């Protein structure tokens, strides 16, 4: 904890950025009370008086909520939905009966009865297997704390009348607190707890307030009135910024605001060239959060499944994986979801799996190679995926394929899994398309041969480039040798796309090149019509697509085929745009 007298030095705190944008403002530090409820009993005979106290507390809580409702009349529907739920909890007849019964039978004071009964339901609801339902435990806590505060005779902490340019810094901001924020006044939110799926994050995004969650000890490090900069994109909070930092962020904010305004116009449009040619825009996802951008894309080009394996202390079970895959498929609706099987190797350790320590992990027992070794783990993932296939539009994609032998072996494992499911009478979609990542040169160069063995492929430009250029992409020492615009890269991509288009099979690209506006025109010119990227990039790529025609793109693509160095190609592309 910092001393109040030493305030001038700049301090940088980090957390999870959940709502984009840069904001400047003055801190208002808000610590939600942690109510400690004492074991207090009353004398027999006083029951009615204490029951009446509880009923009055509920009435006061209702008045508070109604006041919020009227303030929200023209406010956000998300805010009203939350308060609807809180009223329903407040007047829950089971809670009412249980609180009254425990008070009468155990002679305990209202605060103790309220916390006992609510805590019971908080733990039941919090353990729900459905994360959306489990998060409603926060709403139960919210109503409980409101009642406890009222019983103690304290007024509500009113966040609805904060001064202009306030950045709210809280330890545990409750959904009802956030719902009452005055939109124009609060420029950013910093909170010690929470994550991207929390109610708070959803509200912040709907209010378009830059927000950083899970900033440890934020309320200890920051004092009310201190000047702050919040970067909701990178998850950075700057306390008492110096002049240099402030001006750097002011520039960033200006650019971001301008760019966002322009790009936002493209967010909900389809990917389309100036002449009306359609380019399908996909997103890459790496978890099962509720809305990573399904509404503004055409497909999920890459569903990374590593998070299931890395966030846990043991191998994920078939059921755990099934639940997650099913959830993602249902959330994506009828949009195709390309599930990539486990892509992990010696560069990342899993506590429960003894991976060999290798001299060259990227050339070692990675991804599919590891799966062939750990056959039970591989089959478990494929079983979970196939069982989930009936809930949406699933595609399965194998990473790190280096030969047609790899493709055939992977497919035979999948066939064995399907047969097992048949024997068990377990339903699955028999028409799930099977494809591969093209990221190893030895498969890239035989795209015309492998195309007959698969239903689709996706080019992983990051790994393809690192293998093609023999350059570790994470090694800053050799960054200049990692050349994704090299003639070799473009010719390789060209060869793959030509082979797949000729065979009438789906080909897409899911590496970082897909999200780079400088590459958009040449990729389309080379024949790609499916680009998949992180959701944050879709608007800018859609905007880029709208700038040129197919003919222009094809001209650019043929012209770069004759350029000899990456430098020449980048210069040409920069001038051609």
């Amino acid at each position, binding site marked *: 904890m910092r001393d109040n007298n030493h305030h001038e030095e700049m301090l940088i705190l980090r957390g999870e950025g959940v709502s984009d944008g840069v904001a400047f403002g003055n801190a208002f530090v808000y610590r939600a009370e942690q109510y400690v409820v004492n074991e207090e009993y009353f004398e027999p005979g006083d029951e009615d008086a204490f029951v009446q106290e509880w009923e009055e507390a509920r009435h006061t809580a209702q008045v508070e909520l109604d006041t919020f409702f009227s303030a929200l009349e023209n406010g956000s529907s998300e805010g009203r*939905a939350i308060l*609807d*739920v809180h009223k329903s*909890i407040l007047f*829950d007849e089971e*809670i009412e009966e249980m609180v009254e019964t425990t008070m009468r039978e155990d002679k305990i004071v209202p605060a103790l009865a309220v916390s006992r009964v609510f805590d019971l339901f908080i733990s039941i609801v919090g353990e*729900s297997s459905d994360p959306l339902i489990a*998060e409603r435990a926060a709403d139960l806590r919210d109503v409980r704390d409101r009642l406890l505060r009222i019983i103690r005779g304290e007024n509500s902490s009113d966040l609805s009348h904060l001064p202009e340019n306030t950045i709210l810094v809280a330890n545990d901001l409750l959904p009802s607190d956030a719902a009452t924020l005055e939109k124009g006044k609060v420029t950013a939110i910093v909170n010690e707890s929470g994550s991207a799926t929390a109610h708070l994050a959803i509200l912040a995004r709907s209010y378009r307030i830059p927000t950083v969650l899970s900033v440890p000890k934020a309320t200890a490090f920051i004092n009310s009135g201190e000047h702050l900069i919040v970067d909701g994109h990178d998850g950075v909070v700057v306390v008492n910024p110096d002049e240099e930092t402030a001006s750097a962020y002011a520039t960033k904010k200006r650019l971001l605001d301008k760019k966002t305004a322009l790009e936002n116009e493209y967010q909900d449009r389809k990917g389309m060239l100036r002449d009306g040619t359609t380019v399908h825009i996909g997103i890459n996802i790496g978890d099962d959060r509720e809305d990573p951008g399904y509404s503004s894309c055409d497909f999920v080009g890459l569903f990374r499944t590593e998070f299931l394996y890395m966030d846990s202390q043991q191998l994920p079970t078939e059921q755990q994986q099934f639940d997650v895959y099913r959830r993602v498929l*249902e959330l994506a609706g009828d949009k195709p979801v390309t599930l990539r099987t486990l892509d992990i190797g010696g560069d990342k350790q899993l506590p429960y799996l003894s991976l060999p320590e290798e001299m060259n992990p990227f050339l070692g027992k990675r991804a599919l190679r590891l799966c062939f070794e750990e056959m039970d783990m591989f089959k478990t993932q494929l079983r979970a995926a196939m069982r989930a296939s009936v809930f949406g539009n699933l595609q399965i994609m194998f990473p790190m394929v280096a030969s047609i032998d790899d493709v055939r072996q992977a497919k035979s494992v999948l066939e064995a899994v399907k047969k097992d499911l048949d024997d068990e009478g377990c339903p699955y979609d028999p028409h799930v398309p099977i494809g591969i990542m093209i990221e190893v040169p030895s498969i890239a160069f035989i795209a015309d041969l492998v195309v007959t063995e698969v239903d689709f492929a996706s080019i992983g430009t990051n790994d393809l480039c690192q293998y093609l250029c023999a350059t570790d992409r994470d090694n800053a020492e050799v960054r200049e040798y990692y050349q994704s615009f090299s003639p070799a890269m473009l010719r390789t991509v060209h060869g793959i796309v030509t082979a797949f288009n000729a065979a009438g099979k789906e080909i897409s690209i899911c590496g970082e090149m897909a999200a780079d506006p400088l590459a958009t025109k040449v990729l389309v010119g080379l024949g790609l019509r499916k680009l998949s990227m992180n959701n944050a990039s879709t608007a800018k790529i859609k905007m880029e697509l709208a700038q040129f025609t197919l003919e222009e793109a094809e001209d650019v693509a043929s012209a770069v085929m004759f350029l000899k160095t990456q430098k020449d190609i980048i210069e040409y592309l920069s001038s051609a745009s």
Partner: protein
Amino acid sequence: MICRLTEIVNPSGLHGRPAAQLVEAAKRYRSKLTIRNITEHGEAVNAKSIVRILSLSASKGKTVELCAEGEDEIQALEDLINLIDSGFGEI
């Protein structure tokens, strides 16, 4: 007492607002109303209580059984089933 089965079809399941809507509808009737998560072999709970409904973990795709007992049981059951089948305005 009469009972009927139905499947949860709204994407977010019986979480916050849908649960509140169900309670609001249930409270319009005098009958005793219970709901049970059949898929997870859960116990029947009071359908007029939001905390009980949240405790069901009735996400999309789960089958629930609704039972009604009382003078307006037929109307009550039909009303609640229709509400669940309509997807609470989410679909």
